[in-house]
């Protein structure tokens, strides 16, 4: 038994003054090379190197993927949320810097990378993003300057996802669990339980 668990810590008084929050980052993962980046979550980190490291070790290992993409939360600009899908507009042009466009198919859904537009500012980038990618099928468009997006791809990393990660996924246990249940339950009960598994837990 660890001794640490038996130590009783005693504290008096208030905490030291807080440090405030670190920068917020938005994280996306790519399931395959050339595939779109899909929203995965958030993290807090003081700089881009630490943020990329966290994104790889947390989100990049929690699902089968080939890389992560991050940007600061304050680097993104979202279109306003309406109740109807965004209609295609006729905002054309290719002047300005490249912006990465993410689209959200419906409220409550995740943002998925759609492509690039060039624009002189975020507002124009949103208009051009809607024109290029909304197609009346998305409710929100997010734009981020391509220069503010940072990626960690498997091909650029010496060691990442090289080992057996089956212990991290439910499917890594399914076969063993089913075999073990067979010693306690007959096949019909087991099938009903498995159906309940899918309904209740997956």
């Amino acid at each position, binding site marked *: *038994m*660890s001794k*640490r*668990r038996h130590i*009783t*810590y*005693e*504290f008096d008084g208030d*905490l*030291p003054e*807080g*440090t*405030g*929050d*670190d920068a*917020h980052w938005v994280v996306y993962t790519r399931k395959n090379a050339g595939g779109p980046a899909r*929203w*995965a*979550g*958030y*993290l*807090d980190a*003081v700089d881009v190197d*630490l943020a990329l490291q966290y994104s790889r*070790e*947390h*989100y990049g*290992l*929690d*699902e089968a993927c080939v890389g992560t993409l991050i940007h600061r939360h304050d680097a993104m600009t*979202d279109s*306003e*949320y309406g*109740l109807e899908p965004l209609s295609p507009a006729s905002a054309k042009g290719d002047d300005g810097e490249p912006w990465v466009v993410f689209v959200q198919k*419906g*409220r*409550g*859904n*995740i943002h998925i990378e759609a492509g690039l537009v060039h624009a002189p500012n975020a507002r124009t980038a949103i208009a051009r993003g809607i024109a290029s990618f909304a197609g009346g099928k998305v409710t*929100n468009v997010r734009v981020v300057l391509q220069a503010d997006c940072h990626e960690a791809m498997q091909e650029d990393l010496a060691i990442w996802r090289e080992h057996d990660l089956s*212990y*991290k*996924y*439910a499917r*890594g*246990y*399914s076969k*063993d*669990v089913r075999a*073990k*249940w067979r*010693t*306690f*339950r007959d096949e019909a*009960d087991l099938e009903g*339980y498995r159906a*309940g598994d899918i309904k*209740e*837990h*997956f």
Partner: protein
Amino acid sequence: MSGAANPVQPMCPCEGEDPEKLAQFEQRIAEGVHIEPGDWMPEAYRQGMLRMAEHHANSEIIGALPEGEWITRAPSLRRKLALTAKVQDEVGHGQMLYRVSQELGKSRDDMLRDLVMGKTKYHNCFNYPAPTWGDIAMIQWLIDGAAIMNQKTLADGAYGPYVRTMNRINMEEAFHFKSGEDMVLTLMSGTKLQKQMTQDAFDRWWAVSLMFFGPHDKPGAETMPAMRWRMKIEKNDSLRQRFVNRFAPAAKDLGLIINVCAKDEHGYVTSVREDEQCVRDEATGNWGFTDPDWDEFFRVIRGNGPCNAHRLNLRRFSHEQGDWVRRAGAHGTITTPPAA
């Protein structure tokens, strides 16, 4: 893992809100439209969602403590890797949920400080001891199983950022549950001693699992703001019954006995009797069960559980030990790390 659906407290009525906007908001909710950041929402909704997400986030990081203590003592390399990954997942869930809470108006720094100072709560089930590897198996099987049931309903809620986060978290919780199920199956296929250890752990965690879903619903719960606004989707008692219907027959098939237990102030079982109510009602298909000790539930909520002080003090210890790292990151201030 968390039972975040259950800290919903009575919310203030919408006094002072624009009646037209409130009516539109409620109509959208009723139509199944998700609420996104930037949408108008009543202050009571924002506060309620903040309280719920913050409680959930707190539960994730405190929930990592009892399992984290077992990483060094896991019985095999694969179990050690899995437990390490699970603990990392739980802390990651906390990070995501704090971010959802931040968007609702409270800084992460304030949330972490309020947690260690006891100003905000976390889930009751983490105030119980985990003295054996069997307890780790039970936490992953029963508590994570209950958490997924609960969180799957929360993923059908109305607040977009929380829904997206729940969907992501549930994907990872599935691994936790399956890993726990594998551990319980392995132990119950093992030696007499292993089976006894598993039964003892089951005795410690069964009633805690029933409490996981919160106290009995008040009459009219479905018309109160928490459910009317789809912050929570299913009533506590309904979730609890679904849990029992799934886990009681599974436990019995494994050879576990479902007992009603008395516990001492340290959370250890002092006496057991078999729960005679735990049989299937052929008419309804529901399994019966003896209610857990609700006096104990409220005693633990008030801070008087077996491990409340230990968990909070350990979190405070970690918070203070990490202070120099946060200052270095935030201000570039390099100081000497404190002695452990």
